[in-house]
């Protein structure tokens, strides 16, 4: 939120605000009010012994997270903000006349304004036997502690309730290694958010993950089981044995305190509030799940935050109302993407529904459109929520739909309509994590923030989950264009050209050095953006030794010292192990070298061995030994080809159909040393089982009975992307020809630090265009691309071999030019039998000492 709240100035005396409840919403309120400054003295009462924590991610406690990882605040943080907080102390009564709250410790707190954020409690249906010790609920960290304790005696567990929370809970139980079942009273799971078909898709997918789902089951009683602790008896006379039951059959507002104080309570429970979030007592507010607004309890955290925003604003001059909240939601349940927007079931009269269902890929999408076909009423997404943000904008802002609304959810064949950011009204929410509207972004730009970085900093947009990054960028670009600020793709302030343009200039003008390029096409001295980019371009074009005097200043430290700098300034060393194949003798060499220089060794994801903790001056000696034993540099430091992983293939494997190791070694040796806009990774699998994970690589090869299938532009890591199938059943020669062309075309046209995955996504015409260039030679450049690759392959040199043979170059590998000393601040300690960098408190040597 970026609003400016001013405090009522005429009343300068202190206002005591007492917040009862320290869940997510109560915390949000207290934190926000305290942050305003002003005359408020904020006191918080929390019934749980812990300060507020993130309940949404509770199941992660069974996936390795600790309670403190979920903490939203701490006693110290509250103290620093001037909030008086008491944990493990519940409010037990309110004296509204005297404006005093009494606590479980029989202490009394006076208030001017009281805020009830008491939350909700899990509903346990009145089933005989539900009071058994092994029948639990799922809401607090303590509940999870109880579940964990009971799970020790359990092999099988049942969640009663197949809603959002129930499935989260099932995930938690599965993470504990239990045979997990979900029992749902209704005909389908997540019945509130999903339609019947979507629910079926989700059910199938989570059943494939090993969670059993039983729908249309009314539990009548819980009795002791024959071989298990418990047995559920259903109304249809069937039963289900289990050792543990967790109820997740909905929530009920925790309104006891308010009820006993005589505040107005809704017919089905909940403290009734108006759009100021005020209860029937004008000094008392209620927010979050304990409140009922317009007959509705909002069981999601985002509406709770909006209530807190509204309630805080009532104490200022700038009052904002709470007018209900959108219950659209996008989340991952047991790893399955699920999204629900507005009228998901198509209950609006006359609504027209469009569906896309793909059983092979487990994707289901549905949109509900108004009778006139102009407005989006709601949507259901299962298995793929990539369209969610766009659909939500259509629904929330009442934007007019394209003529064929189904194109919005059909697979993208290049004709998918894109939502123009100009069409969005100023009130459109771009970032739902921080509730940033398009208007807030435009205001920030009016106030001078013109770069994406500045806008993110001052609005917080796109700093939560980051899901809106693309939308934010398109809004910002469109706004910049409107203001006449050209959206430029200049690489940096020194060159008014993109990387692609610089590549072209260097090639056509045969420019071989940075000063020459800077002199003719740039200005200033250059910087850490353009220098390495140009260094890479020159290396791709002319493939000269990267440490030549005229190139050395262009390289990042990793390229300068041909090793990867680590956090303490030491380096790691990675020799090439092509295809991951290595002899025992060579393994012994690595072992000997690592032992001699006391290096920390670890296997990498790319099937090689990384040695850490080498000091600058040790690098040449280490490499001398490695080179003499026949190793080459692995280019782990460069924006270059890293590894070509392989599975063992037809040579050994019963299933392999081609020699994947042989092909991986051939490819790795062919492209080793190739400088590119970003690193390149590859893999070759010997059969369709795909053990080498080739589909997550920049270029991946999978063996078939008839040859090789080529996949391109995949990625793992931070932004995974499944590679696209590019060509099938290729012979060795054609495969290599296509890869030659593909890589050179990427090197020529990509932006700086743009991986192949993003490059393809930005390539106009997409995969089909790429195929037409590489396979059909549409641009008539394939011969040139191949010749260029041949030149690079033919001029390969191991940079480390060249370096250790040249005394001039070795001069660089000194910590100090005028002393033999080592850097005293590089200190190691031993852990699990190897070295690691000492933490600050473990270092005994002072900063200045030598």
């Amino acid at each position, binding site marked *: 939120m970026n609003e400016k709240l001013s405090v009522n100035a005429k009343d300068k005396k202190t206002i005591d605000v007492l917040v009862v409840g320290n869940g997510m919403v109560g915390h949000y309120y207290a934190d926000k009010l305290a942050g305003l400054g002003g005359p408020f003295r904020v006191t918080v009462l929390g019934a749980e012994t812990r300060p507020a924590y993130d309940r949404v991610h509770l199941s992660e406690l069974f996936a390795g997270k600790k309670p403190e990882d979920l903490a939203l605040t701490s006693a110290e943080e509250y103290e620093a903000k001037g909030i008086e907080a008491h944990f493990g102390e519940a409010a037990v009564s309110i004296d509204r006349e005297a404006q005093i709250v009494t606590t479980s410790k029989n202490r009394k707190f006076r208030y001017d304004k009281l805020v009830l954020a008491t939350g909700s409690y899990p509903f346990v249906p009145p089933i005989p036997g539900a009071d058994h010790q092994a029948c639990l609920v799922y809401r607090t960290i303590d509940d999870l502690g109880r579940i964990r304790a009971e799970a020790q005696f359990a092999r099988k567990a049942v969640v009663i309730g197949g809603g959002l929370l129930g499935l989260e809970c099932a995930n938690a139980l599965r993470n504990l290694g239990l045979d997990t079942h979900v029992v749902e009273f209704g005909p389908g799971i997540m019945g509130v958010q999903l339609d019947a078909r979507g629910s079926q898709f989700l059910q199938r997918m989570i059943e494939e993950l090993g969670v059993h789902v039983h729908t249309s089951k009314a539990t009548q009683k819980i009795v002791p089981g024959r071989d298990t602790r418990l047995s559920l008896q259903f109304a249809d006379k069937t039963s289900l044995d289990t050792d543990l039951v967790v109820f997740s059959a909905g929530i009920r507002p925790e309104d006891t305190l308010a009820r006993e104080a005589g505040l107005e309570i809704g017919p089905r429970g909940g403290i009734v509030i108006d759009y100021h979030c005020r209860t029937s007592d004008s000094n008392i507010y209620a927010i979050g799940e304990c409140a009922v607004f317009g007959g509705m309890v909002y069981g999601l955290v985002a509406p709770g935050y909006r209530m807190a925003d509204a309630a805080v604003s009532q104490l200022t001059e700038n009052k904002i109302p709470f007018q209900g909240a959108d219950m659209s939601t996008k989340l991952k349940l047991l790893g399955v993407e699920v999204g629900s927007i507005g009228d998901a079931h198509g209950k609006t009269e006359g609504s027209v529904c469009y569906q896309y269902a793909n059983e092979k890929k487990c994707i289901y999408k549905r949109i509900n459109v108004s009778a006139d076909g102009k407005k989006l009423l709601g949507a259901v997404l299962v298995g793929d929520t990539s369209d969610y943000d766009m659909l939500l904008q259509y629904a929330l802002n009442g934007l007019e739909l394209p003529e064929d609304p189904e194109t919005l959810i059909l697979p993208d064949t290049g004709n998918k309509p894109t939502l123009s950011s100009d069409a969005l009204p100023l009130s459109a929410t771009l970032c739902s994590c921080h509730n940033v509207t398009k208007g807030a972004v435009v205001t920030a730009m009016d106030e001078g923030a013109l770069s994406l970085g500045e806008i993110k900093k001052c609005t917080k947009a796109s700093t939560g989950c980051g899901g809106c990054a693309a939308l934010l960028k398109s809004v910002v670009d469109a706004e910049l264009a409107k203001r006449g600020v050209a959206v430029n793709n200049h690489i940096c302030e020194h060159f008014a050209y993109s990387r692609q343009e610089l590549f072209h200039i260097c090639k056509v003008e045969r420019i071989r050095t940075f000063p020459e390029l800077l002199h003719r096409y740039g200005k200033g001295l250059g910087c850490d953006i353009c220098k390495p980019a140009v260094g890479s371009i020159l290396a791709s074009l002319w493939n000269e030794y990267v440490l030549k005097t005229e190139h050395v200043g262009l390289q990042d430290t990793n390229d300068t010292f041909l090793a990867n700098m680590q956090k303490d300034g030491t380096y790691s060393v990675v020799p090439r192990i092509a295809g991951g194949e290595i002899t025992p003798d060579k393994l012994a060499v690595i072992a000997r070298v690592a032992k001699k220089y006391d290096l920390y060794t670890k296997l990498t994801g790319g099937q090689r061995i990384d040695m850490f903790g080498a000091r600058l001056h040790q690098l040449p000696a280490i490499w001398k030994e490695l080179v003499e034993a026949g190793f080459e540099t692995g280019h782990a430091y460069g924006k270059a080809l890293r590894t070509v992983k392989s599975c063992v293939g037809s040579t050994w494997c019963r299933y392999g159909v081609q020699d994947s190791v042989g092909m991986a070694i051939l490819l790795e040796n062919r492209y080793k040393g190739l400088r590119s806009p970003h690193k390149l990774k590859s893999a070759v699998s010997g059969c369709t089982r795909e053990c080498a994970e080739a589909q997550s690589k920049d270029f991946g090869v999978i063996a078939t009975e008839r040859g090789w299938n080529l996949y391109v532009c995949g990625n793992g890591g931070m932004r995974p992307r499944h590679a696209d199938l590019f060509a099938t059943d290729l012979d060795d020669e054609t495969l290599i020809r296509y890869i030659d062309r593909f890589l050179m075309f990427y090197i020529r046209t990509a932006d700086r630090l743009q991986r192949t995955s993003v490059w393809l996504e930005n390539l106009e015409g997409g995969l089909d265009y790429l195929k037409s260039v590489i396979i059909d030679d549409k641009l008539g450049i394939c011969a040139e691309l191949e010749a260029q690759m041949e030149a690079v392959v033919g001029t390969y040199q191991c940079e480390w071999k060249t370096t250790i043979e040249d005394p001039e170059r070795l001069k660089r590998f000194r910590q100090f030019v005028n002393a*033999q000393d080592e850097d005293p*601040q590089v200190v190691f300690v031993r852990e699990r039998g190897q070295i690691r960098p000492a933490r600050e408190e473990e270092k005994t040597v002072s900063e200045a000492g030598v």
Partner: protein
Amino acid sequence: MNMKSKIERNPKDLGEVLLCTLDDLIPGSGVCALCEGRQVALFWLPELDPAVYAIGNYDPMGGANVLSRGIVGDIGGEVVVASPLYKHHYSLRDGHCLEEDSVFVPVYEVRVSDGAVYCKVPG
């Protein structure tokens, strides 16, 4: 001139020490020298006048002695080095960090004379 690990006092000016020769520096890049126990990052930018700059080698944002191994250049007219750790930029003229206003690295006075590089010993 071939430098050993000894640091010699320059007889002409007792406030200075002879660090190394210009041959020890790398045009368009940096090296590190020890000056009375301090790690000094030396940069040689032949196209500028003065051409040699010296700042502390310790990157306070990254927490390691690495600045001599960064890339030099200019940002908005300021001559800077980019730390190899997290790419913070430090001014070679006054040592301030471009990304964090309150962070500075020490700056040392250097002088080149007859191919030798002298550094004023900090007080």
